[in-house]
């Protein structure tokens, strides 16, 4: 029983990492109708930026703040101007491929230009362990989980409850109509990518101590996040959290009780089960009425 609890809890800790990365996916989908296959790299870059700033002597949180600003400019504004603006109107395919290309470029640029090594990353939380009902948990695990929860709920509330959030969704659903209504489309698109950039920084801050700063950390992180977002429901931010936790926990349970070698198939199996009765993901909204 304690073993089971231990597994579940560790799974939740990993799951909240997936959720953080997945949050970016759902945000971009809801607010710009795009999928960013470089999402993992968007986490990797800030991780290295923070390392560099930390090396220059900044404390971790200050490094985080500076990185956020930088990310908003580069990953937010730069991405919008360079990729989103010219490609958004052509639908999903070109932007998906452009971000795949971008991911390859970022990953290999980092490798060639900086380092092919894994670098340790300081944790926001003290390295402390607790015993809790026989389960060992680290402060970092709990902290990540709590912060992930807060970020997910915050993003969700922003999108659903503020007029800006809804305007962002409106742009994604029908850009031309949004223009006609006088919604400042470029600004909404910028907000979307700026928020995404800040979320990526937050994710980097929380996941890198476990993932380690490495040029290819984004690859597996991005894939897992995509899984999580799909299972939870792509058009819902809370879905990202639910999906992340489910994938994290189930993977762990499968590794322990079924077959470690096949644990990566778990996400697929859950997904297949989910689409049998909810093709739009667990928390996804059904897109109504097509005719």
């Amino acid at each position, binding site marked *: 029983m304690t073993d089971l609890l231990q597994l579940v809890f560790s799974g939740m800790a990993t799951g909240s990492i997936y959720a953080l990365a997945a949050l970016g996916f759902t945000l971009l989908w809801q607010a710009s109708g795009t999928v960013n296959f470089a999402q993992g790299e968007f986490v990797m870059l800030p991780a290295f930026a923070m390392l560099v700033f930390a090396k220059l002597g900044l404390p971790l949180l200050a490094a985080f703040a500076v990185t956020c600003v930088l990310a908003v400019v580069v990953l937010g504004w730069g991405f919008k101007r360079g990729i989103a603006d010219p490609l958004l109107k052509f639908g999903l395919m070109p932007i998906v491929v452009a971000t795949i290309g971008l991911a390859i470029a970022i990953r290999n640029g980092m490798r060639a230009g900086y380092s092919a090594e894994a670098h340790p990353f300081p944790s926001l939380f003290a390295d402390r362990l607790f015993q809790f009902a026989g389960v060992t948990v680290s402060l970092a695990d709990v902290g990540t989980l709590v912060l992930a929860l807060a970020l997910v709920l915050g993003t969700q509330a922003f999108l659903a409850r503020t*007029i800006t959030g*809804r*305007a962002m*969704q*409106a742009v994604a*659903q*029908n850009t*031309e*109509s*949004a*223009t*006609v*209504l*006088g*919604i*400042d489309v470029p600004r909404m698109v910028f907000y979307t990518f700026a928020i995404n950039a800040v979320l990526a920084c937050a994710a980097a801050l929380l996941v890198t101590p476990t993932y380690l700063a490495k040029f290819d950390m984004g690859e597996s992180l991005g894939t897992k996040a995509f899984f999580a977002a799909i299972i939870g429901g792509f*058009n819902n931010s809370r879905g990202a959290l639910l999906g992340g936790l489910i994938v994290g926990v189930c993977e762990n349970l499968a590794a322990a009780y079924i077959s470690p070698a096949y644990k990566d198939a778990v996400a697929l199996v859950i997904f297949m089960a989910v689409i049998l009765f909810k093709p739009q993901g667990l928390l996804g*909204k059904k*897109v*109504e*009425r097509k005719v």
Partner: protein
Amino acid sequence: MSMDAAITFEGVTAGYGELMILDRLDLRAARGRITLLIGPNGAGKSTVLKTLFGLLKLRQGRIRLFGEDITGAKPRELLTQHGVAFVPQGRNLFGQLSVYENLELGGITLGTQETRARIPEVLALFPRVRERLHSAASSLSGGEQKQLEVGRALLLRPKVLLIDEPSIGLSPLVVQDVFRLLRRLADEQGVTVLMVEQNVKSALKMADDAIALEAGRLVLHKPAPQLLADPDIERLFLGGGHVPASLATP
């Protein structure tokens, strides 16, 4: 025509990519009046409205609004600085958002407070829409959606209203209501209306002027009553939408 012109096209050439639909088009719509834009399918009526509202780039020519040059102005500027509102053809809602949220976004240039205060006014005009206030916009019926769209534009209390075939999908009673409403706006508030309609007969009855387009060119511009009174009017409807020579404005 000596009337005070609200909208003026001066030799406007515009279209989609390389394909030019409007060809050195000159066109005027008078202030405080309802101008009806008619023509066969594909004549370029919607293109006129889209160009005017800054959604299409001009290749040539100028557009003036109350004398002021607005060539190349963005929709947002037209909305906020010139009081122009536009109801495009087809469906233009945010399907996954609720009816109320759609209305709120309609007033995004007004500010939330102001918008919320005005929403009940609009809902009073369209009771069907009020009943479905918290449903997703995409779940509404075709006509209900159109009503919502018209309401969303009226929310802005525009000085100039561009409206593209409002009658599509609306039931006869509602069409009457909308036409009457437009008439009232023009008469009482001096709103300039430029309206495209295929429902020509009833539209002519409520409009002040009529403009006919064919293949991107203006072929007729007359006061609506004069046109209605013309004995040749039936030929306008039977001749494939083409304006018979007897009706055309030289």
